[in-house]
């Protein structure tokens, strides 16, 4: 049996080397927590699988230093077009306001994302990833740790972990070992995914057809990926034969109708699937935390699977790390379920609604959909009902037990407690950078100054706060355009966008959690004890 050699034994075992598990390992490394990642596959699966990565996901992966590479390689798309038969009935533009590092969406094959994450893991000083290691059993020890049986080269060895992150996907072995059932809806409708490599580039748009003329099913979706690869997603209907539908000749006949008979293309990947929208009841089971598809599955329309999974680890890792590092009580771990289950439910709801619109079952649902299509030709209100997938949005933990009441002086402008931060271009001296690049890995304080005298007093105040609050690693001071260039210590909001997006005035302070969601905020600088109270709340103290 191959012996595992570690400087010290990792406390956290991550099961599954998909994008979610790998990102978790890197985020743990940010908090100086060693992990071991095991995956039963001996290499990256070249199936392109997840392709759409949201702005929020890019911002999460920015914390592990990957945003630039992902944006660089990915295809940034903004426009979505929806057709009924041949007629374009609706289109949308995702271009969020300019002035953020990450675009609204990029398309990038999952295997690229995994490769980038693995390359980054290799930069760590200790071995992290073990391929060909398959979890075959899991149980709890008396001291509430996880005893994991792992099979490798026909041997089975035990691994005791203080914490396990179950990122082992929709067919999660750990979920099965614990006999946890997924509950929700299963749809009979079958969909065929084909990725094809073409010889020319296509416009960077998402195209969706209801009742397309080139395909006798109900809907079709076309996405553009890097390397001239197209994602084609065809609704086939129920009761199709999974074997014959994946036959290459049959698939080619379908693709020919879309790309034209003379089109030159190679088939990269074929997959047939059914929708489900379901989740396990709780994501935390003692020291075991379920993330991503292991915890919840949604339909692919809306890109809520991969992006939802990244938000899971975004929420989980700082909590587990803070507990391991002795900075926060174990009670903080309970908040993973409290914050991520409503998030999963929001994704499930949106996904089920999209599926319902795409696969109308009753006469009434068929009638209403026809009515929507017809009315939307002339009346804009009806276009809002057309649901070809509602694209992933970051879940906002408003009302969470970790989040403080909002300061009413903001009149609900800016970023509410619980919401994720908004990016803005910012200057340090003459160098332009992004606000998200400046915010720390741990808790941080973001202060805004617009007056000379505040600029002088606030640094002293923030130094004192950081000294008193264990986990607050860093503060940053954003100086208004008016104070531009007065001090190299401050970030300058030359564009005014940071002040605007954060609804800031002189002395405004935001307490930002390690997952870059807002814990609390004050329009005017709070007393240290007020700040302390909000901070303690945010770590379940």
């Amino acid at each position, binding site marked *: 049996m191959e012996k595992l050699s570690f400087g010290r034994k990792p406390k956290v075992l991550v099961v599954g080397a998909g994008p979610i598990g790998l990102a978790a390992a890197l985020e743990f490394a940010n908090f100086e927590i060693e992990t071991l990642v095991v995956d039963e596959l001996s290499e990256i699966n070249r199936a392109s699988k997840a392709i759409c990565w949201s702005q929020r996901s890019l911002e999460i992966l920015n914390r592990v230093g990957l945003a630039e590479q992902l944006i660089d390689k990915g295809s940034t798309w903004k426009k979505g077009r929806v057709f009924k038969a041949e007629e374009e009935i609706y289109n949308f533009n995702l271009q969020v306001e300019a002035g953020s590092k990450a675009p609204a969406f990029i398309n990038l094959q999952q295997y690229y994302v995994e490769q980038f994450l693995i390359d980054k893991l290799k930069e760590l000083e200790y071995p992290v990833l073990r391929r060909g290691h398959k979890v075959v059993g899991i149980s709890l020890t008396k001291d509430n740790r996880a005893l994991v049986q792992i099979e490798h080269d026909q041997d089975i060895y035990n691994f005791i972990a203080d914490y396990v992150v179950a990122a082992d996907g929709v067919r999660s072995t750990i979920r099965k070992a614990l006999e946890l059932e997924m509950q929700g809806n299963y749809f009979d409708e079958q969909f065929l995914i084909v990725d094809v490599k073409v010889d020319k580039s296509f416009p960077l748009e998402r195209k969706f057809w209801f009742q397309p003329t080139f395909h006798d099913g109900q809907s079709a979706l076309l996405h553009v990926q890097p390397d001239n690869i197209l994602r084609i997603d065809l609704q086939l209907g129920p009761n199709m034969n999974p074997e014959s539908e994946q036959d290459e000749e049959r698939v080619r006949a379908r693709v020919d109708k879309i790309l034209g008979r003379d089109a030159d293309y190679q088939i990269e990947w074929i997959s047939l699937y059914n929708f489900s929208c379901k989740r396990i009841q709780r994501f935390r089971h003692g020291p075991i935390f379920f993330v991503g598809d292991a915890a919840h599955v949604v339909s692919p329309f809306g890109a809520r699977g991969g992006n939802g999974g990244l938000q899971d680890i975004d929420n989980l890792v700082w909590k587990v790390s803070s507990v391991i590092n002795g900075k926060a009580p174990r009670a903080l771990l309970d908040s993973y379920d409290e914050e991520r289950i409503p998030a999963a439910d929001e994704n499930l709801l949106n996904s089920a609604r999209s599926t319902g619109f795409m696969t109308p079952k009753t*006469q*009434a649902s068929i*009638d*209403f959909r*026809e*009515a*929507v299509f*017809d*009315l939307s030709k002339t*009346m804009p*209100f*009806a276009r809002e*009902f057309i649901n070809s997938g509602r694209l992933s949005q970051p879940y906002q933990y408003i009302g969470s037990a970790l989040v403080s009441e909002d300061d009413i002086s903001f009149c609900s402008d800016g970023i509410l407690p619980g919401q994720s931060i908004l990016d803005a271009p910012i200057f340090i001296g003459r160098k332009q950078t992004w606000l998200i690049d400046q915010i720390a890995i741990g808790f941080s304080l973001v202060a805004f100054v617009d007056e000379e005298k505040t600029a002088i007093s606030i640094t002293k105040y923030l130094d004192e706060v950081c000294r008193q609050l264990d986990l607050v690693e860093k503060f940053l001071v954003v100086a208004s355009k008016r104070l531009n260039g007065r001090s190299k210590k401050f970030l300058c909001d030359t564009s005014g966008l940071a002040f605007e997006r954060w609804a800031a005035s002189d002395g405004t302070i935001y307490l930002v959690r390690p997952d870059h969601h807002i814990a609390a905020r004050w329009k005017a600088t709070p007393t240290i004890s007020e700040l302390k109270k909000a901070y303690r709340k945010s770590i379940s103290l």
Partner: protein
Amino acid sequence: MNADDHLTQINNITDPDEFYEDLIQAHDGLSADQSRQLNSRIILLMANQIADNRKLTELITLARMSLDVT
């Protein structure tokens, strides 16, 4: 919810007879299928005028309750 926010269950239309006649006449000459399709369009247009989700939910519940099904 304020009492004012509830849907009124007494007649609220200025001229109910006129509306009723319009509604019925709109279906003149339509097949049963076309009538269903017309109703769908009317419902969507009306919903957009009512606008408020809570009202719409209450309205759907009221209608469903008045239907003698279990």
